[in-house]
């Protein structure tokens, strides 16, 4: 897959750069990396990062050092559906350990692993700002809150149906 934004996305990049004063286009880096990750398979390959560097006219190392600092940028391929389950204190005291165990068993994978069919990756993350609606996980753009084993089953079914 050649790494190249569509016309529409290139316009989006221009729009992002216009948010900053003249000459401060490096500020566009994190927003453009989000766009790149969404567009090129859910992770940032070296090729993708080099492309972003060339677009913003900065050096590749400036992109690598930023991409590796932030936990939302995936440095390796992930499954089509990434389950990011919060495990920090407030979620833990509300039962996140049990939910993580349930997902592990249900999908037959450990934390950080992807199912053989490439559909699901399980990740544990730190507080996502949903502590009052725990246990919870992030799935794509949205949060899934008040998780129970039944809800987890339904989410897995929903993803499988969407993937077909």
């Amino acid at each position, binding site marked *: 897959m050649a790494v190249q934004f569509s016309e529409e996305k290139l316009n989006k990049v221009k729009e992002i750069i216009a948010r900053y004063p003249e000459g401060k286009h*490096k500020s566009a*880096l994190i927003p453009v990396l989000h766009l790149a990750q969404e567009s090129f398979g859910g992770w940032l390959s070296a090729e993708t990062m080099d492309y972003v560097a060339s677009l913003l006219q900065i050096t590749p190392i400036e992109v690598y050092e*930023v991409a590796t600092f932030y936990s939302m940028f995936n440095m390796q391929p992930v499954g089509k559906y990434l389950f990011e389950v919060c495990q920090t*204190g*407030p979620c833990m005291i*509300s039962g996140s350990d049990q939910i993580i165990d349930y997902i592990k068993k249900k999908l037959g994978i450990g934390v950080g692993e992807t199912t053989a069919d490439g559909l699901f990756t399980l990740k544990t993350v730190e507080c996502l700002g949903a502590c009052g609606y725990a246990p919870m996980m992030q799935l794509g753009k949205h949060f899934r809150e008040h998780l129970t084993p039944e809800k987890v089953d339904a989410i897995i079914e929903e993803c499988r149906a969407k993937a077909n």
Partner: protein
Amino acid sequence: MARKLLLDKAHIENIRYYDVYRANGGYAAAEKVFKGMSPEQVVEEVKKSGLRGRGGAGFPTGLKWSFLAKPEGVPRYLVCNADESEPGTFKDRYLMEFLPHLLIEGLLISSFALGAHRTYIYIRGEYAWIPDILEEAIEEAKRNNWLGKNIQGTGYDLEIYVQRGAGAYICGEETALIESLEGKRGNPRIKPPFPAVKGLWESPTVVNNVETLAAVVPIINIGGEEYAKIGIGKSTGTKLISACGNINKPGVYEIGMDISVEEFIYSDEYCGGIANGKRLKACIPGGSSVPILPANLLLKTAKGEPRMMTYEGLNDGGFVTGSMLGSGGFIVLDEDQCVVRNTLTLARFYHHESCGQCSPCREGTGWMKRVLNNIENGKGKMSDIDLLWDIQRKIEGNTICPLGDAAAWPIAAAIRHFRDEFEWHVLNPEECLKRNYGLAHYADPLPVPAAVAAAV
């Protein structure tokens, strides 16, 4: 019912949209400002209100604004801190999701007061759906000439932009946030220079929390003096508290800062008591960085007075027998919870979030995590408890930014108040894997242990 100033209209259907917000008194404060207030008068009003920063540190907002340098010909910036990543805290999310125009109106008035023409909302990357809500509201405000050029015919120009982070608690620290907004790693800067002098792109910058900036709207509407009448002493106005953990009604509440902790936990208006008929064991009242308190010290101060939900009330007794209001992230633990395990999750959190610039923070948080992991899993030694105490002491005060302190305090407080629970883990390595320590002597209504009271 307590007086509500921020969430009073949150229940109105479609208040998210401009027309509904406007029809319900929205942009009246901005109108008032543009009809006859100078930027200095706005700052004065905020000073009079006694408003203190709602992001955690509680620094007086009016005073902070008056520190902003104003060199000729150099742009000034306002940055809204919507990074909200302190465990237990989810109040800013609520404001942005349900009342985006309240924030935009607050940003408009505050930007005008500071002389800023470009204002950024830096929002944590995981709140991925909220930028759409904010950007839609910004568009609406622009169409109605509350943003853009020559706002309401006053000649004042302002653009507001939303910038997403990408998963880093440290970017909530204001200088790390500025670095991140400049497209770099979120490494906190050494201060001075302070952002008020050299901030975003080396220009004078004010960074304020979402709730702080939203509170400017009611302050202008009712006047600073009226706002200051709510609350006790230097804790003026209303505060959003995000309550979570083992309570009947987790959620976001607006309190007047004049109620007791007991009322907040047990009344039906707020948390509605401890869930499942259990008893209260402990609470972290202001976000994960503040000291945990056992129930007896939470409900009453060491002097035996009711503890109040104010900056001073929660701080009563200092770090020996008190805690802090912090960001208002109120985490409640019932009798079944394990303090060691809870502390371990927090140590892991800070280790994960350390930016790695200072060795006491980078190495110390990793050590604390490993030692706690051993104790929690029945592999600890008695000397590990003292080791933990020693490590946290070596981090506190020896780092570039306050994340080091924030990592040290929860551990110090857990050992200070729950040492026998840590010892029990060491002495019962097998049993601690199967059950939790329980309440011991911490629960309400047992009195404060004499030794602690004497230490105050």
